[in-house]
């Protein structure tokens, strides 16, 4: 046996090892490139099939909202960007999503909408589906994976949310307090809930007695609003323990602003 297997001695052992390592590396590279070629082929075949499907069912996609939503969901699920098909349409600069959807909006706008949807989904567990337009803008600018960040204005985002309307996805802009928020859960906030969220924006948190003292609400009304907001994850409960084992009055905090924290 050569000394190699026992972590050799002498210069020749080093040379041998280097040779072996580099031949492993080149073999590995060859394997990897042949695999990636075959994958690329598979993907382009799949893309063209998807494209002909889109053309064939263009009318349905255009006219049937639920069909369109399903189609978009399918594209999303298999990681095909419906915007990336520009080269397949033959029409330069327009994706087939766009050509199917008509003249509405340019790719940039649609692209922003997609990213807005992603950010809303990524933060939903955190904020119950209410993301401030400003936070959304900051998150887009930061970008977190491929492609990096995109710089947009708050108006761009609001316009993008508008373009989502035809999808019937329940995305809308609501004004709470003095902040514009993207609501991504198709559930209406009632006026009381909006008021409470507005107060939280100003004070940082709210308690039942703050609401009752300042708005003249009755206990039952306060209770209902706060419980509903809790249930929808729009506010979090804080029960501060005092030294004597008692609790301070419940505080209700909005998790907005916590999104900045990286969740794995």
């Amino acid at each position, binding site marked *: 046996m050569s000394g190699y297997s026992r972590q050799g001695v002498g210069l020749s052992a080093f040379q041998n090892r280097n040779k072996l390592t580099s031949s492993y590396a080149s073999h590995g590279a060859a394997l990897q490139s042949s695999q990636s070629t075959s994958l690329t082929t598979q993907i382009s075949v799949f893309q063209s099939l998807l494209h002909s499907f889109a053309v064939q069912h263009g009318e349905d996609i255009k006219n049937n909202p639920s069909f369109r939503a399903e189609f978009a969901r399918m594209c999303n699920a298999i990681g095909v960007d419906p915007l990336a098909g520009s080269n397949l349409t033959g029409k330069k600069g327009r994706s087939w999503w766009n050509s199917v959807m008509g003249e509405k909006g340019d790719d940039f706008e649609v692209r922003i909408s997609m990213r807005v949807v992603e950010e809303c989904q990524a933060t939903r567990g955190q904020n119950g589906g209410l993301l401030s337009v400003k936070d959304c803008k900051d998150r887009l600018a930061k970008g977190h994976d491929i492609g990096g960040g995109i710089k947009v204005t708050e108006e761009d985002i609001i316009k993008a949310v508008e373009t989502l309307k035809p999808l019937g996805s329940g995305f809308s802009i609501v004004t709470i307090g003095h902040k514009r928020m993207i609501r991504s859960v198709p559930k209406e906030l009632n006026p009381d809930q909006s008021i409470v969220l507005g107060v939280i924006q100003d004070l940082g948190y709210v308690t039942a007695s703050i609401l009752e003292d300042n708005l003249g609400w009755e206990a039952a009304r306060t209770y209902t609003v706060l419980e509903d907001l*809790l249930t929808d*994850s729009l506010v979090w409960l*804080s029960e501060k323990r005092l030294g004597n084992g008692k609790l301070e009055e419940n505080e209700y905090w909005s*998790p907005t602003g916590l999104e900045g*924290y*990286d*969740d794995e």
Partner: protein
Amino acid sequence: MSQSAPPADAVVFPKSHSFPPFWTIQRVPATRQTQFKHWSNTIQLYCRTLKIWRMNLSDHLSSPLFHNYKLDRWLELEEAQMILEWMASEEGSKRAEWVNESSSGKAGDLAGRTTAWIYWRRPEEWADVIMDWIDSTGQKGSVVTIHEITQGEATTSQEFHGMDPDILEKTLQILIKRGKAQIFGASGEQGVKFF
């Protein structure tokens, strides 16, 4: 213990750590899940920074991890246990494991569960890290002692330096199953051969 462990104030806690509701176990399930995810990340960050491989909850209840002195808020033992229990679950991506799993019969019974391994990397992830180190230092085919891996001069800059022996054992078992390692020698001076 690792001789180079930084002091507890070296940990920069994330924003959520000074968010008052973070210190109340949320009763709405969806909110609680988000909360526990934040707690899990925070605990992992704390343990990674301080190189705490196994955490005894009673020892850390008054540490800045579980007690925010500025807010005057803290977690009780049962609350910290609930969080670790979640971390140990499938849902919590198995970021913790109770050291005395067997002493408590049924799942969810927290009595006696006070010490857990904290996995800022799980054993299968440590297996990859150690193999990378073996690869990059050209030690494939050679024998390394267990002592060398976790305590040796050559690994002081490695993340696994000072690793808890039980976690190393779990890690090596994974590598053995993968056919990447073989342990031999008497206990006390065991050697590992990597392939």
